[in-house]
């Protein structure tokens, strides 16, 4: 039996070797490299005409597909969106994976297509992984609106941006610089290494720091807490140990800033290290009140969901097509104009501090 096996193995081995050689030879002849695919992406052409005066259709079915259903922040957004849908006589629902994985959202998009929803609102875990199915959805006349975290531009009609990415990135550096008197080492505690929006913001932060007025400030490290409470907590400790001269931490993620604040509030660094970033008032109230955190910012997630819902309805009712310059009315939030690349910006983020924090509950 063993000799039999051995022969089989030899055959397998030589077959594999042959296949490899063949593949390499082929590669030598006609390689497909990155440069070949440049410019393949086509613009999603929309021939439909917008009718700004069309009424919002009744009974629209909107589906919210958050990064993951267990994320408290996304839940606030989606619930507000669902409530908004009821306002204009539509119905909304929230579906999604319980892990924030790029691939998990894909199967949900496919089933939403089968369920013939009128619009899909998605906070993409990966800008490209969800692209194929979303294009499929648009082909079947399902409107696609990205919110919170964008997809690739030709895979959705609109992107509801919570605030301009540039403004978020730059303003965080500006805020912490003021708190530190434009001096000292800072670090960033981000979410996952692959998080699209955080990485965009960080690019803008780095760009802002190039301005000569920040010459005495230095970004020493970008750490990743994976949007995991415990991991972010431990990363904060590590940062403070590794960089004893660290004066400030920017954490552009709600999980990260809460974990960092909790660690600092309970350690000897309290009052010596400044924390700023994006957080929800409910998570941060304790640390603002005990003086660990002076200020942080965030947009109102409820408004984000609300605006998303109205934008999707306007698309599905034919009021807008997603072209730049079109206007629509988003309920009580007033009129919004579509910007470049189908982007709609909610507004500047709110800065929370001791004085105003009790006015917010989310």
């Amino acid at each position, binding site marked *: 039996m063993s000799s039999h096996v051995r022969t089989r193995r030899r055959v397998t081995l030589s077959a594999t070797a042959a296949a490899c050689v063949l593949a390499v030879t082929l590669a030598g002849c006609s390689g497909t490299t990155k440069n070949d695919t440049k410019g393949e992406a086509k613009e999603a052409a929309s021939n439909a005409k917008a009718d700004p005066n069309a009424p919002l259709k009744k009974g629209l079915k909107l589906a919210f597909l958050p990064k993951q259903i267990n994320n408290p922040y996304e839940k606030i957004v989606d619930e507000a969106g669902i409530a908004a849908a009821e306002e204009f006589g539509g119905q909304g629902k929230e579906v999604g994976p*319980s892990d924030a994985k790029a691939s998990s959202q894909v199967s949900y998009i496919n089933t939403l297509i089968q369920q*013939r929803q009128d619009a899909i609102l998605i906070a993409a875990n990966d800008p490209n992984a969800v692209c194929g199915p979303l294009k499929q959805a648009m082909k079947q006349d399902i409107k696609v609106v990205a919110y919170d975290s964008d997809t690739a531009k030709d895979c959705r009609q609109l992107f509801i941006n919570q605030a301009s990415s540039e403004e978020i990135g730059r303003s965080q550096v500006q805020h912490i610089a003021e708190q530190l008197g434009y001096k000292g080492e800072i670090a960033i505690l981000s979410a*996952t290494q692959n998080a699209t929006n955080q990485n965009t913001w960080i690019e803008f932060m780095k760009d802002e720091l190039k301005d000569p007025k920040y010459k005495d400030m230095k970004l020493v490290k970008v750490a990743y807490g994976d949007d995991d409470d415990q991991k972010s907590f431990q990363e904060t400790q590590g940062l403070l140990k590794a960089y004893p001269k660290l004066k400030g931490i920017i954490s552009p993620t709600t999980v990260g800033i809460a974990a960092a604040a909790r660690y600092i509030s309970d350690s000897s660094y309290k009052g010596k290290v400044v924390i700023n970033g994006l957080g929800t008032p409910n998570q941060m109230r304790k640390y603002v009140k005990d003086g660990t955190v002076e200020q942080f910012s965030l947009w109102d997630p409820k408004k984000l969901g609300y605006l998303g819902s109205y934008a999707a309805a306007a698309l599905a009712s034919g009021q807008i097509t997603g072209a730049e310059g079109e206007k629509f009315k988003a309920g009580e939030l007033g009129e919004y104009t579509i910007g470049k690349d189908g982007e709609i910006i909610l507004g500047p983020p709110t800065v929370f501090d001791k004085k105003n924090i009790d006015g917010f509950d989310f």
Partner: protein
Amino acid sequence: MNTLAKYLRWDTVVGVLLIAVFLAGSGTTEGFADTANLSAALNDTAEIALIALPMTLLVVAGQVDLSVASMLGLSSALAGSLWEAGWSFELIVPICLLVGALGGLLNGWLVTRVGLPSLAVTIGTLTLYRGLASVVLGDKAIADFPEAYAQWATYTQTVPGTFVPYPIALFAVLAVVTAVVLHCTAFGRSLYAIGAQEDAAYFAGIRVKRLKLVLFVLAGFVASFAGIVYTLRYGSARADNGLGLELVVIASVLLGGVDFDGGKGTLGGAVAGVLLIGLLNNLLTLNDVSNEIQVIVTGLLLVASVLTPRVVTSVSERRQRRAATAAPATA
């Protein structure tokens, strides 16, 4: 052999369940039996299904490989970073497959030559390979893979005249090959022998270590291939691709009645297990059953899959024993 256990083999039960889910789905849920939906649902299981093939062989031989999902991620990350560096895709694929085979070789070497338990080894390489993936690609996400290849991995491109997407068609062919190898060749029989009683198999002249080594190499190879499929299918190479997939693969295989103790199970059962989890999740999602409930259902099915056969066996054994004690009295 008693009658009850004969007709109630678990892999048959899973097959029946699969058909039942399909019928119930097409009867009650609009859009389920739609070809586009079936293509999408099937394609979503592509990587799990592919990896399940060598995993079945491993489990039958009494081994397990937890590092497959990390290898998938490593292969994806490697493909991404080489693609970014401007390599040609035709060269990237064999390199990834080679890395996969080498990774499998390391697993196999540690298990067979150093003599470590496969569970411990592959927990280690699970961490190692995922770590390497993160070293190779860092925080980047690479996209824009060549459309000429990517289209073969999507569910919209199906084998002409059917609703079967190409990755699943490939899987079907490989499944038939694997089934023949496992059930109709000396190689396959020796895997059962190793799984049932390793020492006996060794004394019967089976080259236990060599076979195990081959299986691990195969698992690494297929996992890296699945990594390529994954990358093309989602059009995105990331270090965290396929995170946690190993448990889904193992759950599917075990659900199909392959005994974790080794030596028992059929490939058909494993394939039915993969498809059952895939279709059931699709059906539940279509009916707006939340993901949490789906997770619970998967867990319960898994427990049932190991518990039921044992309960059936013990009940029928008891019945047999009673019959045996009653028989002399009536004779």
